[in-house]
């Protein structure tokens, strides 16, 4: 037994010694392995070990309570409003009577070109009588949003009436004209969609574009070639056109320049490139077209080609509120997705009655539109030779826009000059005209100027007086 074990041990020792003594390597388990390969295998193991070890990161030290206290004590906030180094604001004139073609300011009778009272409905007896009836029946406010008992029968009647006039199946009524467009755009266009808008759109549209979180492209003001170029560029880049909604947002009559959008050309482009149009007709509803239906009637475009029409009723219809029409799907979608429709109280019923009264007046007296056009043409002719100012608005636009022929250098000095002109015209000649105001939040690049809102109820003597006073004051200011 002992000799057997000794033999085994001796054999094992022989094997091990021969493995180390062999000049060209040993044979372990029948496989020849060289001595330097063993060293390399060891090195590989060391490398693998280092790679698998986590790299050394400095430990994260969160701020201590004391450090946070110090930071909070050191922090100094800016004042809530910037220091106003500008002079005090010029106070707007305070009216003491209804804002019709003539208004009383500071006890004096003044010819009023500051109200967008295009059809002359301010002070209309029938409208006021229907409002009195409405006030006695419904009170003033509606005390609830549309979904919670804020829908009154006058709202539904008003919607049906407007839809009938425009020629669309249905209409949604909003409680304020200003918020209509910036609530409609985010309801239809979301993140990932594409919007192409005119660079001269007003602030409410810009806010709607921001809130929608869509990709926005601007084209040059009223320039169809610029629009076409952008549409082609966008379409060439989209991979899945069936999944991306695309819109063109324009105003019918731009309140920042008095230009009219060329709808025919736009509809052709939209159909070619498969975009939808959102048209803001705040200043053209009740003004353009033979029966006042707006830009579509004036251009001879059938209503079905325009997808969404919005308008504020605070202009031609001389009431307040907003509307949005389109196909049945468009209107129903809004009633559930548009924030300014759902989360706010509905339009006061007497304003809806006033809107119905205004529409009845317009249907019964289409001649008021011809009178308005005649007034605009007369005033434009009279204003064609004012020194220092040039009319740039469209001949059919009820907003007559005059801009400075030569800018004084900065927006601020331009504003001063224009303000001094309007002040003088008011004080010395009793005519109320206004400058364009721009908020610091407004991104519109169009130039500032003077605006005159022409009404169908202005008489020729009113218009002649306005033109004559402006010419006199401008002659002195620009001499």
């Amino acid at each position, binding site marked *: 037994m002992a000799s057997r074990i000794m033999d085994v041990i001796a054999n094992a020792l022989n094997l091990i010694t021969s493995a180390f003594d062999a000049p060209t390597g040993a044979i372990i388990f029948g496989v020849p392995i060289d001595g330097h390969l063993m060293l390399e295998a060891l090195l590989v193991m060391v490398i693998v070990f280092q790679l698998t070890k986590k790299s050394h990161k400095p430990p994260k030290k969160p701020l201590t309570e004391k450090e*946070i206290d110090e*930071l*909070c004590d050191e*922090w100094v*906030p800016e*004042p*809530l*409003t910037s220091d*106003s180094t500008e002079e005090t604001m010029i106070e707007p004139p*305070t*009216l*003491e*009577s*209804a*804002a019709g073609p003539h208004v009383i300011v500071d006890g004096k009778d003044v010819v009023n070109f*500051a*109200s967008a009272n295009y059809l002359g409905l301010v002070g*209309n007896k029938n409208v*006021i009588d229907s409002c*009195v009836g409405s*006030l006695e*029946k419904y*009170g*003033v*406010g509606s*005390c*609830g949003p549309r*979904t*919670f*008992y804020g829908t009154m*029968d006058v709202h539904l009647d008003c919607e049906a009436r407007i839809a009938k006039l425009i020629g669309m199946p249905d209409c949604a009524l909003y409680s*304020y004209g*200003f*918020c209509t467009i*910036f609530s409609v755009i985010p309801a239809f266009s979301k993140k990932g969609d594409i919007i192409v808008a005119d660079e001269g759109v007003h*602030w409410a549209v810009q*806010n709607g574009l*921001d809130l929608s979180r869509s990709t926005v492209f601007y084209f040059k003001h009223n320039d169809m070639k610029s629009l076409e170029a952008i549409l082609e560029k966008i379409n060439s880049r989209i991979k899945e*056109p069936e*999944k991306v*909604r695309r819109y063109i947002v324009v105003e019918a009559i731009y309140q920042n320049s008095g230009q009219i959008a060329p709808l025919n050309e736009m509809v052709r482009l939209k159909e070619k490139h*498969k975009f939808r149009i959102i048209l803001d007709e705040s200043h053209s509803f009740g003004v353009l077209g033979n029966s006042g239906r707006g830009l579509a009637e004036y251009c001879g475009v059938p209503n079905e080609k325009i997808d969404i029409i919005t308008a504020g009723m*605070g202009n031609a219809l001389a*009431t*307040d509120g907003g509307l949005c029409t389109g196909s049945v799907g468009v209107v129903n*979608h809004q009633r*559930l997705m548009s*924030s300014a429709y759902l*989360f*706010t*109280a509905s339009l*006061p019923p007497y*304003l809806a009655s006033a809107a119905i009264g205004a529409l009845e007046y317009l249907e019964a007296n289409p001649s008021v539109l011809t009178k308005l056009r005649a007034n605009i043409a007369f005033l434009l002719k009279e204003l064609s030779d004012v020194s220092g100012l040039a009319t740039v608005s469209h001949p059919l636009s009820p907003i007559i826009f005059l801009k400075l022929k030569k800018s004084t250098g900065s927006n601020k000095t331009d504003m001063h000059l224009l303000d001094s002109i309007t002040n003088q015209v008011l004080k010395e000649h009793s005519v109320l005209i*206004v400058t364009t*105001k*721009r*908020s*610091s*939040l*407004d991104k519109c690049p169009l130039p500032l100027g003077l605006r005159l809102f022409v009404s169908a109820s202005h008489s020729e003597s009113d218009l002649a007086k306005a033109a004559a006073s402006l010419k006199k004051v401008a002659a002195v200011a620009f001499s």
Partner: protein
Amino acid sequence: MVRLPYLTALTTLLSYGILFVFGHLRDFFRKIFDWSKSNNLQGYAPICLGYEDFYTRRLYLRIQDCFGRPISSAPDSWFDVVERYSNDNNKTLHRTEKTTKCLNLGSYNYLGFAAADEYCTPRVIESLKQYSVSTCSTRVDGGTTKLHTELEELVARFVGKPAAVLFGMGYVTNSAIIPALIGKGGLIISDSLNHNSIVNGARGSGATVRVFQHNNAPHLEEVLREQIAHGQPRTHRPWKKIIVIIEGIYSMEGELCKLPEIIAVCKKYKVYTYLDEAHSIGAVGQTGRGVCELLGVDTADIDIMMGTFTKSFGSCGGYIAASKEIIQHLKRTCPAHLYATSMSPPAVQQVISAMKVILGEDGTNRGAKKLAQIRENSNFFRSELQKMGFEVLGDNDSPIMPIMLYNPAKIPAFSRECLHQNVAIVTVAFPATPLLLARARICISAAHSREDLIKALEVISKVGDLVGIKYFPVEPVKPNKVEHLKKIE
């Protein structure tokens, strides 16, 4: 605080699950049928893609008749609800000529100014004849009348601030003011349950927005400390300014905000405060001046106070009250002041008259009576509902009372059954509330008499039993046990 029983949560989830499954099945079949129909919208993306309007089509349309009910009279304590019918299972609803007189528990008519009032309406009609329906102009052009300046001074005096500015609509007030106050580089911290107009205004401003847990001042402090210490995201520059936005009464919960604690935190960290008193101005407080008066907070501690005229004053529009510098700044920059049509003059006159009644300047004590009436009504109604076993949210003195329903099937059941018994109730579901927490919301008015409230309680109790929403029945005290104990002794 909502106490959701486990069984109710389970059944609610199950109900929604069944509704979703059925909705998907119907969508699947619709896809097959629509595939054969031709579509003239080739190349256009549809207005609603995929599941964007799934909730609308499959869940909301089933109960559409509970919402948007038209009325044909003033939203006073009793009003006429127009009956509607549907031929295609609630997809479209048509008006009829018939109306039913119902008790109004849904309109925001806290002080009863919704209907024609003996003091306000003659003055409103007079102003209508003098100034006509609208000025058709913006405030800065030719839309400021003597009424507007008078109301701005009156509002500033009523609220207790140096100056105020008016806007034509409450929603626009928030959406257009917040961008004028703060921009990129600023931080807005808003309560998690703030109204949609505040959320829109905050998003439109470009500032970073953070949320703190509803009404939780310690959490607000935690968020403030973290944000001030870390600064702006990525660059870690210090914030330019921080504004905390809270509401006086939260309209879906009926709770008052914990104003003293939150103001204390804000003062400690030098942040600005913005208080939205849409539902509380004119409705709470000894003289109707809102939550500041009710909770004993000095109005000088709050930087900006906002409110609306729709609820307590029976009109429309909103206001901002703050220091003179802030108001001047807003009048120069706020787009809603520069571009929007000014408030309609008769609506302005309604607010002036209503405020004079509340302040007692009309020569009577109707204002004080109305305020006492609404407080009494709210507290009585809330305590009675709680005694019946309903789960009622909200604090004492708040005129808004949500009753929890939870289950989606109970929403139309409760609403339709109450309407049958001539009580008009508002039910609220997703998306205005979280998915599982559907509720019926009651708004009490000073115009409700004690008999009206008792009738309402009877009907709600009956319907509540039918529908099964008395989740926390109060155990009546058993007199036998006491006697038994006495015998043992």
